[in-house]
């Protein structure tokens, strides 16, 4: 063994030992006590950072989980029961099952059912439009159709149907994080229980006008006729301010109310297709009659929307 080999071994080993000593004391000195379970929980979470749980990010939620006495008030809507079971397992607690939810659009006032009364020409943004006036139809509760909910969706679970001018939820992708609910200035979107076999019944309208006014402005509006309330045997339907609301915790999906609704305002989604069935599909005959796509204003809005989307994407890219 030549000198240089020995020399190498001595110096390198010495450096190694020195480093170990320094590291040991450094580790001791700067030791931070952090509950390792926070990391474990964070790993279990979907890390979408969507804010659906009410906390700014997944890590904050994980911290809250560790701190909380029980998990009753904490729920990750994206991960659902499976993730919460994992989280509960890490914390050694009992998981509390919650029914899976999905967003539904409570407005069916597509172009054919809800005549326009004016043209909107401002910024393509629902909140801007909502601050300005009641919308481009006679119904001041209905969807403005500018797609802020679609922009807000983190999971690409929504799109604007250009034929109806209404947003559509892709149920498979919806995680019920609630971003769209918060984004909608008209409070049209609701999170409802997914229901057995994805079957749901809900009133697709939030119009609180009197029956006649509502009907005049939109042919599929709830007119508050109370027929459904009367026919419901389970006390699930309540009418307030000329508007019916079906409590999904009480509804047993008997579909009696659908049959009696004179304006088709109550929607059922119960096909194995697992899609929200829009009234357009239900009445194919009407659909053929409606000529809406060549309305120049619609095309304009769609175009503007596209442009502003592009701009947004660019500005995001820049950052």
């Amino acid at each position, binding site marked *: 063994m030549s000198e240089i080999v020995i020399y190498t071994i001595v110096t390198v080993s010495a450096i190694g030992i020195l480093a170990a000593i320094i590291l040991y004391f450094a580790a001791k000195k700067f030791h931070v006590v952090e509950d390792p379970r926070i990391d474990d929980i964070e790993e279990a979470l979907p890390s979408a950072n969507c804010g659906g749980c009410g906390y700014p990010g997944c890590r904050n939620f994980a911290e809250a989980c560790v701190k909380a006495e029980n998990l009753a008030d904490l729920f990750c809507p994206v991960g659902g029961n499976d993730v919460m079971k994992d989280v509960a397992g890490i914390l050694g607690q009992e998981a509390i099952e919650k029914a899976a939810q999905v967003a539904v659009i409570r407005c069916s006032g597509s172009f054919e059912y809800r005549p326009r009364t*004016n043209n909107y*020409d*401002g910024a393509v943004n629902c909140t*801007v439009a909502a*601050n300005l006036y*009641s919308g481009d139809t006679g119904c*001041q509760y209905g969807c403005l159709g500018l797609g802020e909910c679609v922009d807000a969706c983190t999971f690409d679970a929504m799109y604007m149907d250009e034929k109806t001018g209404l947003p559509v939820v892709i149920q498979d992708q919806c995680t019920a994080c609630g971003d769209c609910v918060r984004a909608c200035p008209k409070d049209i979107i609701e999170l409802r229980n997914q229901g057995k076999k994805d079957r749901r019944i809900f009133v697709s309208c939030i119009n609180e006008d009197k029956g006649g006014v509502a009907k005049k402005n939109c042919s599929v509006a709830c007119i508050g006729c109370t027929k459904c309330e009367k026919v419901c045997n389970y006390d699930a339907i309540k009418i307030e301010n000329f508007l019916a609301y079906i409590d999904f915790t009480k509804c047993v999906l008997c579909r009696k109310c659908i049959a009696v609704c004179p304006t088709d305002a109550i929607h059922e989604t119960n096909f194995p297709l697992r899609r929200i069935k829009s009234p357009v599909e239900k009445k194919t005959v009407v659909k053929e009659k409606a000529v809406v796509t060549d309305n120049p204003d619609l095309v304009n809005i769609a175009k503007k929307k596209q442009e502003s989307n592009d701009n947004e994407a*660019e*500005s995001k890219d820049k950052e």
Partner: protein
Amino acid sequence: MLKTFSRGGVHPPENKLSAVQTIEQLALPKMVTIPISQHIGAPSTPIVKKNDLVKVGQIIAKSSGFVSANIHSSVSGKVIKIDSVMDSSGYKKQSIIIQVDGDEWEESINRDPQLIKEINLSSEEIIKKVGDAGIVGLGGATFPSQVKLSVPKGMTAEILIINGVECEPYLTADHRLMLEKGDELMVGTKILMKALNVSKAVIGIENNKRDAIEHLTSLSSNYEGITIQALKVQYPQGGEKQLIKAVINREVPSGGLPIAVGAVVHNVGTAYAVYEAIQKNKPLFERIVTVTGKSVKNPANYLARVGTSLTELIEASGGLPEDTGKVISGGPMMGKALNTIDIPMTKGTSGVLIIPVGESRRGVVQDCIRCAKCVSVCPMGLEPYLLMTVSEQQNYERTESERAMDCIECGSCSYTCPSNRPLLDYIRLGKAEVGAIIRSRKA
């Protein structure tokens, strides 16, 4: 060099089509719809019921707070219902609907056109009476006037500025008022001076109203303490802060009121209403409205009763033109676009502007080319492009720190933008959100 404010501003085409039309009394309508919220602040409380009979000038809704105003019937007749009716906001609001029956005025109102110059009331009495008469700022902001006249403790008013700028294109209501009711305006100004206890008043008028300037200047020799100041034509000189800067070269601090620099600003229309309320006992129930537009048959200035449907005003000017694209309540820069003309005029309706189809649409929105024109025209020294971006990104913290709340919504930025960007739309959105944040912070 004529005086003007120091920063920013634009000069849109003036289009004062109705400047030579004398004020016409509009025929009584068959029915009026009087919204109970015609001013900034709390809506008034109706004090009449269905089927009540009311006279012209009778109080029908009472002020419901410090910042609120009384509302008087503008016609005589029967209340047929109190219902929610679409108003210029585009939303349905509570309104009192009165079927007109004759034209019977309250006896206390002096209908004699004779000018009364002597002011017999004390300062407090004037302020109270202004409040009772339901007078609000008639320039368009509709801020209750008695609030402005009540100088807060610890501050003193030094100067009264009467706003005769009318910087909005098209509108001529104030212009005609200054020409035709000059003396009444002067007396109204004196009354306001007395109420505020100031010895100096300046009437600021833009230089495109030479006749009004000359007329009032010749009158001013009869009224001590009132001077007329001609101003360079520059929008938005009618904004309170800009007008104060232009006339007395003082800057109202950010977030502060004009009284912080010792100034109180009232519109010429308000001064005239004050004259009528104090000297003639006549509450505010009618005002001058300009009906104008490039394709309108007879652009005109009407003296019309509050609650008259805009349809009737437009009919009087020759009806809605064929090529109507947009109907605006107010001027083209700050007015509100209407989604129907079947709405009532209110105390704040200074004009009805009909814009033909060709000029009614905005251009296609393009990317910002960072030309900085919005920054250079902003009269408040803000950066509109930035405010738009941050409120679009919902970064409201930044929106606030970039002082969105200073924005006076004059629209100069959107007007000047070569890329047709909806700057003000988003700034307004940001302001609304920031306002909500500030309120929740205080609560």
